[in-house]
């Protein structure tokens, strides 16, 4: 079975600005800061029942749990490597815990940020061999959930770091773990209550058992009540499939956090508060860190500015910002540069509404955001928000708003598209209720494209293509494709961290399954080609080869001789402001030729340097 990895990396994606000097991080006016670390304890039942294999070679509940834990580990490694995770087994024969004071509780991983070693440890517990190893090291024995919970609460209290979010997930397929032992039941309830009191959220990830899992027997008193009385509380159906379990774990495993909280103003002082959430963001490879060669410890960088002549350190006040246009240098204070970008305070301001069909498919410039009311900021927000949501969706309109995400950021217009809640078959939330925030392009963002106009297809040709389309149809799911570049990167790191000989090969899901497509299409392709292409037409062939540069004559490979530019010519260009028409290599040569120091090799920097030199 293919191991599924969840590689998610949520770092802010910054467009690489030309000059790192300028684009200091935006003032985090609206950013939501958190302190402390998130923690998650997996408390897994290790009783015999957990190891029973399903029919038709289906993995055992234990196996499924381990795969799930592994995917959380790897995703934590990638997305939030500061988070702490622990893995604890209960119902074991052997005991292993910090003070060895608890019987039949086996702490496999103490609360720690997971690394490659942890993942490797989990891998050892998977499959047939894993079951054997588990039997050998831990075994299955008596069950006392109370003791296990007590042990977990010690794990939390032993941590010296500040924990911002504490969660504990119980994985089991036994709805009555103590088989009628009411004293043990009582102890477990007390310990669970203690944990909850200290802010730990307890979830149940119950797995299938033949007679069905009855939550009301025991576990309903153990788990935390839903965050909100209306929230889907206990999933009454146990997880049968790994996908379901992973989805359920994933939904809980990440604490949802707003990117910012803003006022949404309808006008005339009618303001509500909303949280802005990022539900999709381009995951990128994290930046490299520099390590000291001798010790492999990370080094920090410090950037300093000092005066070129007297060598004194320059403080922010000793520096200003400048741009050069033609021969003119325009200077501003840092504050002024920020001020230029300020139009209003952060927030959403309602402009009006438009029918949904006015939202054009091709008006897309950035991934969408999501907003949800913040009752804690302005009470009544949720009611107002819900009413807007219902009415917009009923009338099939979207709200057009002006949006300023943080301080000193110019406005953009966004469409708030209503989205009502949808559940999937397993009653898990598939789409949350709220407004999607779609960014709309300004006039500048729309390019003029000269359309290619050509002949159109006949009905017969179109019908043939319809058959092709029909043969290759599938149900698109947004989470169906992994990013092969990221997958490869992390496999490489994993291999290096674990001293593997070679990284595990990745399956590139973005590649077309050509063989399968050809099989399905059969003769259709040829039939279509006969309809649209003349026999001698070869679409793969290059069109009339590009004209060679004029007068290049026979000798193809000869390189253009370097032409040195006279000072006269350069001066002329500077005067006419036509330096920009020269190519970068020519500009570079010119700088070299006249010994002009440049701050960089960007075209503009070269031009600026030359302009400074020759307009003196």
């Amino acid at each position, binding site marked *: 079975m293919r191991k599924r990895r969840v590689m998610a990396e949520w770092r802010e994606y910054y467009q690489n600005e030309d000059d790192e000097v300028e684009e200091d991080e935006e003032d985090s006016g609206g950013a939501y800061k958190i302190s402390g670390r998130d923690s998650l304890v997996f408390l897994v039942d290790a009783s015999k029942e957990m190891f029973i294999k399903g029919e038709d070679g289906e993995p055992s509940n234990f196996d499924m749990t381990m795969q799930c834990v592994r995917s959380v*580990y790897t995703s934590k490694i990638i997305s939030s490597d500061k988070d702490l995770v622990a893995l604890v087994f209960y119902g074991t024969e052997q005991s292993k815990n910090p003070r060895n004071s608890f019987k039949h509780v086996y702490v496999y991983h103490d609360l720690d940020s997971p690394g490659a070693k942890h993942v490797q440890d989990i891998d050892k517990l998977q499959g047939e061999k894993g079951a054997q190893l588990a039997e050998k090291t831990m075994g299955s024995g008596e069950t006392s959930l109370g003791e296990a919970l007590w042990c977990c609460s010690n794990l939390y209290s032993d941590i010296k770091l500040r924990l911002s979010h504490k969660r504990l997930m119980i994985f089991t397929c036994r709805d009555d773990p103590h088989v009628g032992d009411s004293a043990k039941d009582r102890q477990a309830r007390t310990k669970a209550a203690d944990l909850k009191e200290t802010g730990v959220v307890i979830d149940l990830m119950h797995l299938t058992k033949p007679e069905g899992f009855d939550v009301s027997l025991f576990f309903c008193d153990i788990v935390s009540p839903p965050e909100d009385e209306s929230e889907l509380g206990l999933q009454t159906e146990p997880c049968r499939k790994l996908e379901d379990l992973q989805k359920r774990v994933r939904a809980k495993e990440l604490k949802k956090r707003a990117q910012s*909280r803003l*006022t949404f103003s*309808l006008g005339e002082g009618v303001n509500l508060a909303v949280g802005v959430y990022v539900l999709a963001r381009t995951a990128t490879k994290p930046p490299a860190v520099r390590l000291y060669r001798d010790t492999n410890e990370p080094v920090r960088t410090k950037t300093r500015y000092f*005066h070129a002549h007297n060598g004194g350190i320059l403080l922010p006040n000793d520096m200003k910002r400048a741009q050069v246009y*033609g021969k003119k240098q325009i200077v501003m204070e840092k504050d002024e540069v920020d001020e230029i970008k300020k139009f209003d305070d952060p927030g959403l301001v309602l402009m009006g509404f438009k029918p949904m069909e*006015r939202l054009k498919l091709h008006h897309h410039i950035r991934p969408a955001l999501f907003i949800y009311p913040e009752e804690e900021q302005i009470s*009544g927000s949720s009611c107002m928000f819900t009413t807007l949501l219902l009415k917009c969706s009923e009338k099939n309109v979207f709200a057009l708003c002006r949006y300023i995400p943080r301080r000193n950021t110019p406005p953009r217009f966004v469409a708030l598209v209503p989205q009502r809640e949808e559940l999937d078959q397993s009653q898990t939330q598939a789409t949350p209720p709220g407004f999607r925030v779609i960014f709309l392009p300004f006039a500048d963002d729309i390019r003029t494209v000269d359309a290619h106009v050509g002949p159109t297809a006949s009905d017969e040709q179109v019908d043939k293509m319809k058959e092709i389309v029909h043969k*290759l149809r599938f149900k698109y799911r947004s989470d169906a494709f992994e990013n092969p570049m990221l997958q490869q990167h992390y496999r490489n790191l994993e291999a290096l961290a674990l001293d593997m000989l070679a990284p595990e090969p990745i399956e590139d899901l973005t590649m077309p399954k050509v063989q399968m497509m050809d099989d399905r299409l059969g003769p259709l392709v*040829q039939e279509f080609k006969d309809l649209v292409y003349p026999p001698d037409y070869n679409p793969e062939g290059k069109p009339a080869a590009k004209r060679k540069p004029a007068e290049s004559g026979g000798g193809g490979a000869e390189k253009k001789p370097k032409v040195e530019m006279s000072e006269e010519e350069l001066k002329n260009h500077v005067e006419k402001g036509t330096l920009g028409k020269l190519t970068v290599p020519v500009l570079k040569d010119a700088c070299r030729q006249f010994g002009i120091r440049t701050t960089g090799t960007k075209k503009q920097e070269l031009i600026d340097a030359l302009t400074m030199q020759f307009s003196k």
Partner: protein
Amino acid sequence: KARGSSALVLCMDVGFSMSNSEPGQEPSFEQAKKVIQKFVQRQVFAENKDEVGLVLFGTDGTKNGLAEDGQYENITVHRRLMMPDFELLEEIESKLQPGGQQADWLDALVVCMDLLQEETMGKKFERLNIVLLTDLNVQTSADQLDVIIDSLKKARITLQFFLPFPVDGEDRADGGGDGPGPSAAPVRPGKGLSRQQTQGLEMVKNIMTSLEEEDGLEEVYTFSDALQKLSIFKRIDRRPMAWPCHLTIGSSLTIRIVGYKAVTEEKVKKSWAIVEAQSHQRDDVKRETVYCLDDDNETEVQKDDTIQGFRYGSDIVPFSKVDEDQMKYKSDGKCFSVLGFTKQELIRRHQFMGSQVVKVFAARDDEHAAVALSALIRALDSLKMAAIVRYAYDRRSNPQVGAAFPCIKEKYECLLYVQLPFMEDLRQFTFPVLENNKKFKPSESQLSAVDALIDSMMLVEKDEDGESVDVFKVNHIPNPQFQRLFQCLHHRGVNPDDPLPPVEPWLKRDLERPQAVSARCQTPLQDVKTKFPLKVVVKKKEQKTSADVFGSSADEPDAKKVKVDEETEFNLAEIAKGNITSVGSVNPVRDFCTLIRQKTVSFDQACQQLTHRIEQLLGNRSPEYYMKSIACIQAFRDQSVSSGNAELFNSYMQSLKRSVPDRNLQELWDLLIQDALTLISKDEVDGSTFSKQDANQFLAFEQKEEVQAAPVQEDTGDVDDLVSVSCLFGCFNDKHIIYYICECNSDLQVY
């Protein structure tokens, strides 16, 4: 390499008719100058490589290559083709003055053509364009018109006209503006055009339609259009780079395609360099980056002694650049390969990723590819499906998965490609239920209040022909960030020691809710306000998070919190509107509306200040102030309706009406009739004492009444009027002595 650059000649009429203007309007000369200024400003600061020339006609002098034997006189080539620079900006600012002559605009056009021909000789330009800004108010000879049109066609020179009035009577379908702003009184086309202008207009139409058939007229703009949109740039826009590729389905079906980036976020291109504060020299600042160990001494290490690594959870894995390149994912080059087809509805709009939309056409001049792609586009369109494709820009770039949607337009067909998310990009958050939550369940009256609000705030309106018109097209608004940046750069360049200027009012207006919508939604919004209790939660312990957002200091004591919030709100309004404390004479409407919104002074006071200004304006007895007065009256009325206070407005209107004969304000009154600015009726504001019929009749001045002194029997509401009027004028500033004509008791009252 000047790929795709353009040469453009700005040809502006500076003749004396350009300096004339309708009352209350900016002269055409000033408007045209602004258009040119803004265009050049953008060209300079965006550092476009296009070359621009400037030709003026109607100048006192003559300076052009064709002038001979009394021909082509009063036409001046002010600047030959060059990249626009700061100098040009300064020249336009200071040296571009109205001339005292008139010149034939067709002659000027010929001069521009000549200039283009001469200056582009031997250089390669992708586009040649002439922009003519004129009021057409000059005798033009149609002699040789055919030859001129022919040469334009041959030289592939395109034309754009900018006129003070629209080319055809009605606004063009997409020209629907945001309603007249306070200063831009609606131009009434057709009316008031001189004979020359009517003739000239015919000639413009003739030229434009013969150049590009029916679309030609789309390149004739009004000055106000040009300021709002970026119409001048349309012709010389750099076209996006072509991306030729093969669309493949399976192993043997290939279609030659070309993609173009059609929509993508335009960023500010130039960044700021750091200079030393005193010398303003870049070279005086040295930047140094050092590496140091994370120990107490911050021991510095040499860059050469460091290696590259990556985090893998709690581990840090050394991974050299060489190894990384060796082991990294390698794509096999540019591709646009279909993975399969899916229903369009399965691809949600909010799942679009990336920052662009690519338009995909069949390869140019390949009709077989065109037919094949057309078959695909039409098949997808009729099945409501889209292609899911693997897209890689080139060998070095990472592959994407995206959707190609069919797009069939009247004139062309294409695929629209958008990137879709990878699994790693998605974040699964579960949010609490809203709809079926008892706590948040809206009542029927709340639902209907929001229903009414939405109806009143629709930004799509039906025009006379029943066609719905979008009154707030975001894709027609230029990004204010650029305009603001260029404005500040320009200002600082010219005045190095001045503080930065405020945001230009029209730029602000572009970002506001359209006035008509604002007016319409007042009442429903008030209703929403009363039906939904919304209260800022004052937290016991001020959390950093909310403080950050709401802009108050986190360390403020609790008691001060509420006050701070109020202040913040006030500041917000103030920043948006500038610091306004009273109704000034420059922009009384804006000031008045701001005062009302900010509630800095009472409603009554704001109204008093406004009427004060109206009286001042009318006191000038010159018709050009009428437009401004009418805008004031309109604002007075709108605000009164939305505040539910009809009394002040109605009594003012009554007294104004009574003063019409004495003050000779007949013209003003006619304008009020045209705009149907009448009393506020009971239907609009409960407290009004007038029925709708009363209001409708109010404006009608019987001819006799006008001549006669106003009859006494009309003044049934006298006492009330007197009370409100005197309260209206009770607190006028002593310095201003206002003659307020009112014949309630005496003829002239002095306050």
